[in-house]
Every structure is written in C-alpha cells, then in structure tokens.
C-alpha cells in the first residue's frame, strides 16, 4: 500500500511538472502542434482508405491452353496479334480497355494480370491474389470434358485460398471459345464443375494434416455443393477470345473496377 501511495505521489508530481512546462509554452505553439498531429493522422488514414478502395487488379487464371493470353491481348489491344504460345511468365499491364479508348472523359485504367496456367507456375498466383479486385477463371468450353477434373481442382484451390475467402474476391467463370459450334454451354460447364468440386470436397478434407494448403472448406456440409454457397460471388459468362467477343467480361471488369 505504501508503495502504491508513493507511486501516486510520484505521478502527481510528474503531472505538475508537465503542467508547468506546458504553461511555459505559448498557447499558439500548442495549438499548432495539436493541429499538425491531427492533420497527419487524418492524411494517413485517408491514404490508407484510398489505397484499399483503389485496387484495380483483375487476375486472369485458368488451365494452360484455355486462352488467357489471347483474352489479355483482346482487352488490351483488341487483337490477338499473331497468336500465342504457352506462357512462361505472367503478363501484366495497366491500361484502359481497348473498347473504351474511343470514349471521352477520364477513365480509370485497369491493372490486368494473366497468370500462366501451367501447374508448375501456379505458385505465382499467390503474389497477385491478395490485391485483386476480381478474378476471372477461364475455362475452355470446347475441350471441356477431358479437362474437367484438372479445371475443377484448380478452381477448388482458388476458391479455398485464404485471400479469396477472407476478402470475398468476386469470381467470374468465363467459358471461352464459344464461337465454335461444339462448345458446351455455360450452364452445363457450371453444373459439371459443381459436381466435381462436390467430390473434391470429400477427398480433400480427408487429406492428412501435414498438408496445410487449403485452410478453408467450401460450401455447406451435407448439401451438394453449388457456387451460391461460396462466401464470394461466383458468376458465369461466355466469351470468345479469338473473335473478340468479350463484352460480358468487360462488364464484369467495369463492375468491380469503376471507370
């Protein structure tokens, strides 16, 4: 008890000293100092707020050969140039969508990243996901059935990534190559993917404890999986990279990166 009193005395003494000290300083200076402190904190807060709101990154993912690079260049230049080969490195650029170049006024550019689909390069995805405003999962609608399982595995990994779940990054399943007659419809593809993911859910959750890649589970246990159960919004759209029919994709991009 004595100690406590001693402490109290000590503190009050210190306060007195501080008070005296403050009184010595002219009040103008004090106000100025307080104003500066308030101002800087405000600016810092604002900066942070803007930074979060400013995210304009759209990530293109999907299996190798689904047409991501073609779509990337369609968005950028409106042409496929002379064709593409398998990417070895991500393509990324910040630009105004090609279809909007004719519009007047100031348009906010979009930062688009095309991450290679080769399974060995998938770790690169983690670099871009945390800052993404939206992800586009490109599916080859023409050659879908043979690639259904790898595609759904990739999609499962994507949907259970921590950054996607936590930030609720919206996802667009883009069925590419729909200009071909034999291409599957997006409804069919969506259903098949849901079915596959439902099965994956069973086997993945059984994977031994040492594996820590998937820290979140998908959907509601006991119910068949559907994309509606995801915490983030999942939509589907058609596109054709070769013919340049990508209006639905552009809509999605502008929905999440306001012009």
């Amino acid at each position: 008890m004595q100690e406590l009193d001693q402490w109290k005395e000590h503190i009050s003494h210190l306060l007195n000293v501080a008070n005296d000290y403050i009184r010595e300083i002219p009040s103008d200076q004090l106000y100025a100092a307080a104003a500066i402190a308030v101002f800087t904190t405000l600016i810092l807060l604002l900066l942070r707020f803007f930074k979060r709101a400013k995210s304009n990154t759209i990530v293109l993912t999907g299996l190798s050969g689904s047409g991501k690079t073609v779509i990337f260049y369609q968005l950028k230049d409106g042409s496929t140039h002379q064709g593409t080969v398998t990417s070895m490195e991500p393509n990324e650029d910040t630009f105004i969508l090609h279809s909007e170049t004719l519009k007047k006024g100031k348009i906010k550019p979009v930062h688009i990243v095309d991450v290679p689909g080769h399974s060995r390069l998938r770790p690169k995805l983690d670099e871009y996901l945390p800052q993404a405003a939206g992800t586009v999962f490109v599916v080859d609608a023409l050659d879908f059935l043979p690639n259904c399982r790898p595609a759904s595995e990739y999609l499962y990994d994507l949907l259970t990534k921590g950054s996607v779940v936590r930030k609720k990054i919206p996802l667009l399943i883009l069925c590419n190559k729909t200009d071909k007659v034999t291409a599957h419809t997006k409804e069919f593809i969506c259903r098949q993917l849901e079915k596959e993911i439902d099965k994956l859910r069973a086997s993945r959750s059984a994977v031994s404890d040492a594996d820590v890649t998937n820290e979140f589970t998908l959907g509601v246990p006991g119910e068949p999986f559907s994309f509606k159960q995801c915490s983030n919004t999942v939509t589907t759209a058609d596109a054709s990279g070769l013919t340049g029919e990508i209006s639905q994709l552009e809509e999605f991009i502008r929905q999440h990166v306001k012009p």
Partner: protein
Amino acid sequence: MLEQLLIFTRGGLILWSCKELGNALKGSPIDTLIRSCLLEERSGAASYNYDAPGASYSLKWIFHNDLGLVFVAVYQRILHLLYVDDLLAAVKREFSQVYDPTRTVYRDFDEVFKQLKIEAEARAEELKKSYSNPVVVNGNRKNQVTWKGDGSEGKRNGTGGGGGGGLKNDGDGKNGVKSESDRDGDRFVVANGNNNYGSNLKSNGGNGNGNVSVNGKDNDSLNNGAFDVNRLQKKVRNKGGNGKKTDTGVTKAEPKKLVKKNRVWDDKPKETKLDFTDHVDVDRDADVDRKVDYLAKEQGESMMDKDEVFSSDSEDEEEEEGDDAGKNSNKVDAKKKGWFSSMFQSIAGKANLEKSDLEPALKALKDRLMTKNVAEEIAEKLCESVAASLEGKKLASFTRISSTVHTAMEEALVRILTPRRSIDILRDVHAAKEQRKPYVVVFVGVNGVGKSTNLAKVAYWLQQHNVNVMMAACDTFRSGAVEQLRTHARRLQIPIFEKGYEKDPAVVAKEAIQEASRNGSDVVLVDTAGRMQDNEPLMRALSKLIYLNNPDLVLFVGEALVGNDAVDQLSKFNQKLADLATSPTPRLIDGILLTKFDTIDDKVGAALSMVYISGAPVMFVGCGQSYTDLKKLNVKSIVKTLLK
C-alpha cells in the same frame, strides 16, 4: 529445311514468325517444348525432340533474358541442320535491335531474316564443302574459327582469326581470283575470303562481336550483285593491304603458324581436331593467361581439378568468413576491381549479367546443393538452367549477384517440386469406384528401401478414409516377404491375396485384381520384389506385370538416403520399363514415395534429384516406423532446407 522460326515473349505472345517458311507444323511442338522442357528447368539442354504422328521435329532455342524473348527454330529431325544455332544467334542479335516492348508487329523483319538465313546457309554449305574440296579447306578452317566464337570470347577469336588471316592472305587471294575465273559455284569461297577480311578488320579494332555484321554486309553485296570483277579485284587488293596491317600486329605468331598450316595440309580428315590445337597455339602466343581460362570454358575443367579448386575455395571461405556464396563472389570481384568500384557497381546496378559474373555464385550454389545430397549431375543441370535464365539480364541496383542467383534458383526449385499432375489419390480412388473397378497401385523399387512397410502405411491411411483396401503379395521371390505382408494385413485387419512363392508375380497380381473386383475392394496395393535397376530378367518381369495389369498408379519407392544413385535408379527404372514393354505406349513411373525421410536431417536432396529426373511428383513421404508416419511433401520447407 527449316520448318519454322518463332520469336515470342516469355509471356507467350508471338511477335514474329516466318511467313515464308509457313509450313503448318504437325501437332504443337512449341507448346510441348515450353511445357515439358523450358518449364521443367531443362533449358540448359541443347535441343529438344518432338514426336507427333507423321512428323518428328527437332527444336532449338535461345533466350534473350534482358528483353524476355525466346527464339525457337523447328526443323525435321532427319536433317541435321548445322546452321540453326548460328542462325538463331544472328536472329537474336538483329531482332533485339529492333525490339520495342510496345510494338507487336514486325513485318520489316522478314527481309532481315531472309538475309540472315541465306548467310547461315552459305556458311553451312561451306562447312560441308570443306569435307569434299581440299583447296577450300584452308579458308574454311579459318572461317570456322571465326564463327565458333560467341560474344564473351570474341576477343580471343578475333586475334586467332586475325593471325590466321594475316598469314594466309596470299593463299586466299589466289583462291578468290581462281574461283572468280572458274565457276559460279565457288562464289562462296570468295565470300569466305571476304569474311576473313572483315573479321580481321574488326578484330584489329578490338571488337570481336561486331565481325558478324560486317560479314553480313560483305557477303550480301557479293551475293546480291552480279559478279563484278573489278570490285572483286579491288577487294582482293584491299585485303592484301589489310593483311599487311595484321601482319605487323601479329608478327609474333608467325613462326608457329607455318607449322600449323603444314599440318592441316597433310591430314585433312582430322581437320577439326587440328583446329582445336590451333586454337591453343594461337592462344599460347597471344596470351597465356587467357588460354587457361578459355580451355576451362571450352571443355570444362577436369573433375580432379574442379574438386580441388573447389574444396580449397570453400575452405578459405569458411576460415575467413564462414559465410555463403555472396561473400565469395564479392571477394572475387573485389580482388579484380577494388572495393570502391564494386561498391559503386552494387549501387548503380550492373549493366548486363554475363556468364563469367554468374559463375562464382553458381559454383557455390551447386556446392551447397551437393552438400544437401542432390545428385551432382542434377545440381549441374540446374545451375546451367539458372544461368541460361539469368544471362544477359540487368542486375537491379542494391542487389548482389549472389542474391539474384539465389532467388532465381529458389524459383526454379519451387517450380520443379510443385507437382505437375494431381496427387490427390483419394479423388482418383473415388473416380475408379464410380466405374466399379479397383484402383491398382504397384509399388516398385530397389531392395530394402521399404516397399512393404510403406505399403502398409498407405493401406492404413486409405483405411482411415473409408476405403476398402486389399493387399497383393506379389513378392514371390524373397523368402519371408509374404509372411511379412501377412503380418501387416493381420494387424490392420485388411484382406490379403497370396499365392505363396515361386509363382509368376504378374499372374498373381492379375488374380488379385480379379478377386478384388469380386469382393468389392476399392484399392489393390501390389507389393513387388525389390530389384536392382540393372537386373534385366527381373526388370523384364516387372515390365510384364505392369503391362498385364495396367495399374492406375506405378509408385516408385526410393529412400531419401540415396545420393548420386537416385538418378541412376530412377532413370534406369523408367528406361527399362519403356524398353522392355511390349506395348507401344509404355507405362512409366507415375509417382514417388520417399522413405526414411526421418533419418536424413537436412540432406533432403534426394527428393529433388528424383523429381527432376523422372518428372513424377513425390506423393508420400515416409518418416518413421509406425503406421501413421506418412506425410505429404512440403515444397516450401524442402526448398528452404535445400538453400539454407
């Protein structure tokens, strides 16, 4: 003929392809090349063979790392095109001058390419002729010398070519005149003389790199224009004048040259070999120090030397600093350039990384990988691949070469160890279940690596996830093997299929699978006898077993203790399975089970060796004696340990 030549960015956009060649390629050789070669860290290799129905191509490639460009040439494999490397290098040089990241169309490059191709073909023609026409040998040999060189050795080359050219001017002049009066076909001999003249000129100027472009112009003017005797004579005269100039420059070299010349004339079939000695001779005359350097580069150090230099180097390092490669490389730098300039360099960022800059860091990295039990061959290949991906790149400011190399290697390792195919066995099991047939896993491997033990662990793991497992004792060779498996089966309450010893394992496996589909087992785990990879009869038996039963998964069981032998084991297993298979599409190893992982501390290199050599992922890691000691490979931690 050349089928196709492509220039594309690492991002995958084709910038330029040869319209003229424009033959439709069968299959997609380029995509296959990228997927199965360049992305598998095999880009250090010289060429890649692609087989498609109705076509077999060879592909060669070259990187421009600073601009992020890839140049790929495709040609029919049966034609051994000698000029492809040469052409690619020329295309790379020319294209990098016109390249602009914002531009995507390069129509005007067609012309340049046409010219480059003609030149390259002419040079190849020359090489071929040198075997048939003894008169040309002389000029040709020189030509070869000039053209072999790459940028880094340009200087050395220049002096070599210059010396030779200066000496033999007379002979060449005669050659030229003769051919001019003789035939049209010998036109290239003249061009050749000019080539040398060009290189002489340039090398005297001290710029070995530039000689090619000068060549190009000369050659071109000669090829395009009709035969202008006047001009030619003037050229010959010019050459004479120039030759004198060179003579004064390289007088020292003269006496030896004469001897060398005689040698060439005497035995011309061994020409290339002599060529080699020529190099050395010239070098000795020109610069003794450089010779050693050059030899090491050209042929690789002898193993003995390499080891010695290496160990002493690393000892020094430990004594003085006990630090990593970075210090080592910096030390070398510092010795050469002094403290201040190296400091300045690290702040300003170095212009372009050259192979010689990377070498010390890579060597240290290779050493480190090898101390982690990575097979020597694989460490070497990896370093080559990393070097290929860094050469020509700009070093960012405030970074050291060693750290750049380190990050590049880390990326490469992650890429290798990340599985290419899905390793979700349970998903596959469920898929097989839907088709109402058992999922068959065959365990293969060398003796004593722990096949049966880990088979039991896998069985236990599957059982934990409500899968009906059955074991098949197909080790009908080693006494006690069946009993061992039976014990495991009893402890785990798993049915076992056994037929005793001295039976054909392929037949036993077949019956086991039939039995499994009858009693509704989902998975059949087939235990086989351990065998050395060199044992032909046993490997044949294994091949038969796999062919007959067509398992869903061939799991190679390898122990993590293995070092250099890992390469031999896996490559031979794969090779034998491919060679001895009776079907046209042989089954290879699909996955790897790494055992005894708890006994190796940080020497995890075997995992890397095995994955690199087979391309198959590590599906399980066995790390103890009990049934629960089965893990998945953690790629990140392995990479961290490897580079620690």
